[in-house]
């Protein structure tokens, strides 16, 4: 299935400065895998060392949070939009 992954501004630097990437995948996990294979630097920003999605990064298929679907196993359909939504805080240098 062709799906579109929307890359949030803070992570674009690690994804060839692209706003979105079109990929072929059957599940969310496959899509993210394809994405991090293409842009290896993204991997450490999305996944912790134990291989789990970082807890300040949420992934949505269309408008649903995959934590409340089948997580990585969530199936995607042609034309679905996968959004990566990291937490952002604002101005302070921390």
């Amino acid at each position, binding site marked *: 299935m062709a799906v579109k992954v929307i890359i949030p501004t803070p992570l674009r630097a690690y994804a060839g400065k692209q706003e979105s990437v079109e990929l072929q995948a059957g599940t969310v996990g496959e899509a993210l895998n394809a994405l991090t294979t293409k842009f290896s630097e993204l991997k450490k920003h999305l996944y912790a060392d134990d291989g789990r999605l970082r807890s300040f990064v949420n992934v949505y298929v269309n408008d649903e949070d995959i934590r409340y679907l089948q997580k990585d196993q969530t199936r995607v359909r042609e034309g679905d939009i996968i*959004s990566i939504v990291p937490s952002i*805080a604002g101005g302070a240098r921390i």
Partner: protein
Amino acid sequence: MATKTGVTPAPPAGNPPVTLSKEEVLRYSRHLIMPEVGMEGQLKLKAAKVLCIGTGGLGAPLGLYLAAAGVGRIGLVDFDSVDLTNLQRQILFSTTDVGRPKIEAAADRLRAMNPDIQIDTFETQLTSANALEILKDYDIIVDGTDNFPTRYLVNDASVLLGKPNVYGSIFRFEGQVTVFGAPGGPCYRCLYPEPPPPGLVPSCAEGGVLGVLPGIVGAIQAAETLKLAIGKGEPLIGRLLLFDALAMRFRELKLRKNPGCPVCGEHPTVTKLIDYAEFCGIRGEEAPAAQTNVPEITPRELKARLDRGDDLFILDVREPHEYQICNLGGHLIPLGDLSRRVSELDSSREIVAHCRSGKRSAEAVEFLRQAGFRKALSLKGGILAWSDEVDPKVPKY
């Protein structure tokens, strides 16, 4: 901690019913003629008590619109002073306010805009020790802060006190807005159980922010606050509004209350405020000054050696748009391109890498040393320190 506050004592219980004066009727007439607000809504606004945490980019439009709309009591929390870099977006302040405490300048501006309302000022950093005390007198909390520890603190305190928390945050061209902590609705920890470790997510101070972005996001927070106060419309509860100013696109995602949430879930484990700096992995007051072990050179040493005519190769590892702001005439290879373009460098020469503050150049030197460039040095403090110590004509940004 020295907490300077300017809170007028709350009126005694059994206070007279809120009414509008003849002048107030005229002032708020554009609200009064709308049935969705009307006299009933306007009186609710007058009776409303809203706490704005932060008077910066988000707090500016928020404070202005709440004051203009006639919110009867507005609390402001901030401990910062106005600096020149704030003025690009923090429209509460004027150039003449530079150096003044934000809280003072903000309160003056809001009082000038609407003398009929009460402005409470808390010139303090919100902490676990004072948050519950400060928040408890208000009906609605608005989070216009700029850092993760305070955001988790505001969230937890709001949940513990059962108050809605109108959340907004921004980065470069993107904003997020939602209402946390409403009855039955999710909280910040339902959305993000944990903050990112320091350094992994760039801040606005590093990444920049479009000046009007906090204006838009703060104005949306103001709209949500006014709706909550008058009890009308569909608040952003359980919905995360994403805004991209560059694409000029709004999107909406569903937010769910997490039954396992440590603060608002079925079996909460966080039942009082904690140490939020520790929770966010921050030790000490300041951000960890990137502990590097790479060899460094100070701006003064560099200047002396250049004046002596030493053969030094200056490598600028910033981005091209930064080079346009100011430069030391170095060879530009952005840090992200360094591994690909390393062949442009001569390992027999002494290389002095620099960036804006010294963080990226330290990474660059670490990489270069591993790649066999044994004579690579990092300019300590970057171009900022160069401006301070060697050449004040070089602008700081």
